[in-house]
């Protein structure tokens, strides 16, 4: 398998504006890390303040999309003195190309970080052939 195939498997959606979940909805694009192992791609997304039940990972038409609802940071009856935390829903999507086993994608949410493991399909895994 060539190097070109590798890099093409997980690619960030180039036009995120076109896939806004609902028009008018405000959301934040969370920071992401992606690394590749011989068997899978692993995606990490920073989703501080997201609620576990509100994290959605969807695969549709070779696009992996992640939405997450956040819990309100402040209760009612407070005055905000200083404000940097957006406290809005998260959304981000990635294009998946061929060579992914979409049936076995797994996700976990811990310490405000979503981890998505995207296994390569059998034929795209790197194999080493031992010389006899």
């Amino acid at each position, binding site marked *: 398998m060539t190097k070109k195939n*590798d*890099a093409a498997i*997980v690619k*960030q959606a180039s036009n*995120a*504006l076109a896939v806004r979940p609902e028009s008018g909805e*405000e959301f*934040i*694009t*969370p*920071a*992401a*890390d*992606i*690394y*590749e*192992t011989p068997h899978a*791609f*692993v995606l*990490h997304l*920073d*989703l*501080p*303040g*997201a*609620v*576990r039940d509100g994290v959605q990972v969807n695969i549709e038409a070779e696009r992996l999309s992640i939405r997450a609802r956040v*819990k309100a*940071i*402040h*209760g009612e*009856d*407070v*005055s*905000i*003195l*200083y*404000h*940097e*935390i*957006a*406290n*809005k829903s998260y959304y981000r999507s990635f294009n998946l190309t061929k060579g992914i086993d979409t049936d076995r994608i797994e996700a976990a949410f811990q*310490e*405000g*970080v979503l981890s998505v493991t995207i296994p390569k399909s059998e034929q795209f895994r790197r194999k080493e052939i031992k010389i006899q």
Partner: protein
Amino acid sequence: MFVHVSQMSPLFDLDRTSNELFSDPSQQILHGTDHPAVDIAEREHAFDLVVELPGMKREDIKISIEKGVLSVSGERKHYGFPEGTKVLLHETNTRPFERVFQLPDVVDVNGISAEMKDGILRIQLPKAERARPREIKVQ
């Protein structure tokens, strides 16, 4: 009491780089810098200082108070790319950070507590008894 933090309120952020804020959430904002976002709110009996610290565990974070200055620092130690893997995208911050705040006099430093949940650190700064609002009944 502290109407505008931008006008040198006692809770003003001492860190000079604090101008680089995520000030416009309506735009697409990429989170993940070495300058974690902070909110400060006031309640009747306390202030809440909230810091976004995704991927951090309690033991990664240090909170210290000295001479009325509160410092929150830390590093995302339990995070990174396993050896032998190929990094395709790296946007999250894994560098050490520190944010420093001048506390108002009304804060009871002995009563400060903190909790960490889902990547959000919440530090509660109770007001000293004498500073709490009270009603004086007319006899």
